[in-house]
């Protein structure tokens, strides 16, 4: 008996929970210079950053679309709104859709911008960023139902945030590279790598604590450790991939001049693969307090 089947059944959700939090957080990070420095940024730089905000949005959107493909009957999807406030899954979908549509519309308006609206744009992008953070928040809370023994722990929301904080900054570095946005002394880039590094270390610790708990989490069918026998080794692989991603991310963020594109791309992909791996483990350990795995 192992959890492979559950994880493969929910593979699109594995993808969704990998991409959406990282995308949403990257959005916030890329928007930060617009919010904080606004009109002090060079006009050209500001415009490019504004336009390339679509990159994290697309990443998060791929996640949301992927999650919709696993539905048995997408035609009824509008009913999901009726569960808003009551069902954690509705909250997730509604907040995600609101954030992504707002970000999408905001991106469209970036092409029709006249001068003198910089202040307004700063405020709007700040509001959308808050929506992004709310989205990450509701994703983090969508999975710890009280009857799901292995997920009903603070580790579930914690790892969602940590995943966002390790993947988001690297995706932000990639976005800024695409927008050719630089700060003096690569200050922002360094800070982003540091943030991702901290989050990676914290993730390894939290996953380690979770993993050590798995042999004790059991129902009448199996123990969580039996469901995911490779949970602990996966943390090792997660760490290695993460470190490689950080090194490349650091190189990209501190490159003299324009970093070759493959650097930030590989960095982001490696980190997302690392996160995906642990999300896969997350679905493998799914078990209820009764007779379900």
């Amino acid at each position, binding site marked *: 008996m192992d959890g492979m089947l559950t994880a493969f059944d929910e593979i699109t959700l594995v993808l969704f929970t990998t991409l959406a939090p990282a995308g949403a957080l990257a959005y916030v990070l890329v928007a930060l210079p617009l919010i904080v420095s606004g009109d002090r940024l060079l006009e050209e730089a500001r415009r490019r950053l504004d336009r390339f905000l679509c990159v994290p949005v697309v990443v998060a959107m791929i996640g949301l679309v992927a999650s919709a493909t696993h539905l*048995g009957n997408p035609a009824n999807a509008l009913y999901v709104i009726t569960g808003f406030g009551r069902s954690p899954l509705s909250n997730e979908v509604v907040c995600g859709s609101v954030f992504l549509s707002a970000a999408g519309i905001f991106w469209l308006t970036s092409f029709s911008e006249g001068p003198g609206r910089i202040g307004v744009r700063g405020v709007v992008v700040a509001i959308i960023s808050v929506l992004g953070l709310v989205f990450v928040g509701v994703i983090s809370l969508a999975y710890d139902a009280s*009857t799901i023994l292995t997920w009903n722990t603070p580790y579930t929301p914690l790892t969602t945030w940590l995943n966002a904080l390790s993947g988001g900054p690297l995706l932000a570095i990639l976005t800024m590279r695409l927008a050719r946005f630089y700060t003096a002394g690569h200050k922002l880039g360094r800070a982003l790598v540091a943030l991702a590094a901290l989050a990676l270390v914290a993730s390894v610790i939290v996953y380690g604590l979770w993993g050590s708990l798995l042999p004790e989490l059991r129902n009448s069918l199996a123990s969580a450790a039996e469901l995911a026998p490779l949970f602990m080794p996966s943390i090792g692989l997660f760490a290695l991939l993460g470190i490689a991603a950080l090194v490349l991310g650091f190189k990209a963020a501190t490159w003299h001049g324009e970093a070759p594109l493959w650097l930030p791309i590989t960095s982001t992909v490696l980190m997302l693969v690392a996160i995906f791996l642990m999300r896969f483990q997350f679905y493998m350990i799914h078990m209820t*307090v009764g007779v379900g795995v």
Partner: protein
Amino acid sequence: MTQYAFYFNGKRCTGCKTCELACKDRYDLTPEISYRKVFEYGGGDWTKDADGFYVPDVFTYYVSVACNHCDDPACTKVCPTGAMHKDADGGLVLVDADRCIGCGYCHMACPYNAPKVDREKGHTVKCDGCAERVAAGQKPICVEACPLRALDFGTKEEMEQAHGDSQVADIAPLPQKEYTHPNLYVDPCKHAQMANEATGKVANILEVM
């Protein structure tokens, strides 16, 4: 408000699975989907006594269970569309196929493993307490099929009256009753273990998953 409930007599059940098969037959279910499942639960060990003899305390027993139309259902709480709902008339927990998106969250949350997404139909399916038969004054098909008369179905009051010794299901391998407050009354067999101090395991995993 009427609340329907199942009853299961663990002292009678032999684990023959006629209930499960009768249900499958009536609702034309595929091998992958069973609304009712019969769990074989077993455990125990050998211990050495003072004289050096090995004494067994092994046990096994059966529990037949479908959806328990719980008072505090885990499935309805997580359902994003409201498709999974508790019927106002008889308290049966039903799937509105016209609302269900087949996300499967009910399946993930139900500790009795009752609902399951039928990929072909595109929505969740599960035991509806044979609502149609019940409305026509009959009992669910599983109840009538059981050759040992180990199952019963009726209003909560009827079950409490007819089966005075029974208690709300709280035996292994089922979860502790506090999680969802199931409408399942059980007469536990001699070896039945309480859910919170269970030591055994489900022995027929392939049959019930």
